[in-house]
């Protein structure tokens, strides 16, 4: 049905079947969005990994299509984000309709000056293709297709997995196993770990169709549209003239009936009119659950992405949270493997990303409750908010068709050094993601281009003599209009003063940025040992 040509990747006989191989630092279960991203983030820090996938191709169906800025920033470190932007549909604004009238318009990127847009819509199979290609070109990554994980034996200081291949079974020893194997995680099932949460019964129909159209690039959402008058409809554009139309069907729909092409076509004709022609790309009727594991780190087995937590699709919080998970995990795992940090650092992967998962579940549940009211009074309030929105701006803010994914606040993490100075007018506080801004450097026109895979200290000292002491292994960025910097420091040439503005930078201001681009600490003027002390704390050595 799909016009996409799925590439099949070759199976290779593993060395283990011939008695070679040996213990691996990291084995990753699952080659979806999270697994390959984790492998690339580990390779960036010199850590080799093996990825096991039972299949030999990418995601069938477009599935997770909204790639958020924070995910693109992660993928940019591997050189694949630009390709995604070029292929996908960039969008930053959305329109909500009541009936056929627009009632609410939102802009996710009101400020210019970021390397990446708020969102790029790109089918999951393209994202995976680009990631697989990049993994296969990396000497540190061993991506194994048609290798099915069938057993896990977790010990105190390592894991042994049993793998089935077309040539037979073999055992693979690893220091750490990371389960990125999705909502039906085999690893989670094999270890018999619970996945508690809430089941939602409303059904939705995804009709991905190929339709050459001049439709705007914005996300569009209708409550009670004339072409589907009892429910809601969500519309996204994707690459290759593919449209994602998502019809709310209600609880009582018959999924087998709804999936029949003639029934899908009938709904689409009501929407696009009798003369429009389209081809079907992918059809799916889905319900969803919100679930979260109690611990993401279980001894030497770590869970990430949908394997650890799932949400409803409203808000693009599934795939993007998975990328944020592995970005949080990779630098910590690399430090633990090298002995630079104690294994307890990984407990903060669990606490920080469980807090993020809770926030994602809360937001996605609220969106779901607004879109699919669960009892008559809930519907009355939802409809009242919609009706009032025509006239009153306050009611537009209540309309919840999905609160779209942004980096989660990690406030209160034990890795953060809380603000000691009180006079911050703006700028990201410890526990918040750093902000991008344009710079005039030849080697990269944006601040994020200069933030490396280890810790970074951004200083607004102004004069070289006033720069704080730079701890070993930390990249120094000195924000200045011109001039040169001492060893270890790079001068960040300002453009439009936006770095200063976004960080409330005054003479002496400094920010310590984590490898995953979160702020670990900030000062108006760090005293002698404060940076080194914050670094120890942020690396679990405090």
């Amino acid at each position, binding site marked *: 049905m799909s016009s996409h040509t799925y590439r099949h990747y070759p199976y290779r006989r593993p060395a283990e079947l011939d008695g070679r191989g040996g213990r691996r630092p990291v084995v990753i279960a699952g080659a979806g969005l999270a697994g390959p991203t984790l492998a690339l983030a580990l390779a960036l820090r010199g850590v080799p990994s093996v990825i096991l996938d039972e299949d030999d191709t990418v995601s069938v169906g477009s599935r997770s299509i909204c790639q958020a800025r924070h995910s693109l920033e992660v993928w940019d470190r591997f050189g694949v984000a630009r390709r995604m932007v070029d292929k996908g549909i960039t969008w930053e604004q959305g329109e909500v309709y009541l009936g056929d009238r627009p009632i609410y318009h939102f802009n996710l990127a009101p400020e210019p000056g970021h390397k990446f847009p708020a969102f790029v819509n790109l089918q999951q199979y393209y994202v995976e293709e680009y990631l697989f290609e990049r993994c296969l070109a990396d000497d540190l990554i061993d991506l194994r297709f048609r290798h099915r994980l069938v057993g896990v034996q977790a010990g105190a200081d390592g894991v042994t997995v049993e793998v089935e291949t077309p040539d037979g079974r073999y055992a693979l020893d690893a220091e750490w196993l990371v389960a990125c194997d999705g909502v039906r995680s085999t690893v989670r099932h094999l270890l018999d770990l619970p996945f508690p949460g809430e089941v939602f019964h409303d059904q939705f129909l995804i009709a991905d169709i190929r339709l050459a159209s001049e439709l705007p690039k914005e996300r569009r959402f209708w409550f009670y549209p004339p072409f589907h008058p009892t429910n809601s409809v969500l519309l996204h554009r994707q690459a290759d003239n593919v449209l994602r139309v998502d019809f709310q069907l209600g609880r009582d729909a018959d999924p087998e009936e709804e999936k029949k092409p003639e029934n899908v076509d009938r709904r689409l004709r009501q929407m696009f009119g009798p003369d429009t022609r389209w081809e079907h790309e992918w059809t799916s009727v889905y319900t969803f659950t919100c679930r979260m594991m109690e611990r993401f780190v279980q001894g030497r087995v770590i869970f990430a992405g949908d394997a650890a937590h799932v949400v409803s699709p409203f808000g693009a919080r599934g795939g993007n949270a998975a990328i944020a998970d592995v970005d949080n995990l990779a630098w910590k795992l690399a430090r633990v493997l090298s002995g630079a940090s104690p294994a307890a650092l990984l407990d903060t992967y669990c606490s920080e990303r469980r807090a993020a998962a809770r926030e994602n579940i809360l937001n996605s549940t609220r969106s779901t409750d607004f879109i699919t009211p669960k009892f008559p*009074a809930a519907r009355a309030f939802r*409809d*009242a908010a919609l*009706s009032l929105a025509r006239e009153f701006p306050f009611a537009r803010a*209540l309309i919840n068709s999905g609160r779209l994914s942004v980096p989660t606040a990690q406030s209160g993490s034990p890795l953060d050094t809380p603000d000691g100075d009180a006079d911050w007018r703006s700028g990201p506080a410890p526990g918040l993601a750093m902000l991008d801004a344009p710079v005039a450097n030849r080697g990269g026109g944006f601040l994020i281009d200069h933030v490396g895979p280890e810790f970074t200290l951004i200083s607004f000292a102004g004069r070289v003599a006033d720069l704080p002491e730079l701890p070993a292994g930390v990249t120094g960025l000195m924000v200045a209009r011109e001039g040169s910097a001492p060893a270890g420091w790079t001068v960040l040439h300002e453009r439009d003063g936006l770095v200063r503005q976004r960080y409330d930078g005054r003479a002496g201001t400094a920010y310590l940025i984590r490898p995953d681009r979160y702020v670990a600490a900030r000062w108006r003027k760090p005293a002698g040992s404060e940076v080194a002390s914050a670094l120890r704390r942020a690396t679990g050595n405090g």
Partner: protein
Amino acid sequence: MAETASGGLRQTLNLAQPDDIFSAIVDAHRGLSDEQCRALDAGLILLLANHVGDAGVIREVLAAARRALEGGAT
């Protein structure tokens, strides 16, 4: 009785012409079906909540109304 409870919800009369306002609220529902009344009330509550603005007071109002409901009308 104190003018306000600890969270700030006013407990004593704050309307100059209480009978006028009471009648106006009731009259707004005249001739409507139960379903239309529910829709009207939902809009009223959202408008008033936004006007009040204070999240603590709104939560107190919700709790107080719920208490009154459980206590019954007489």
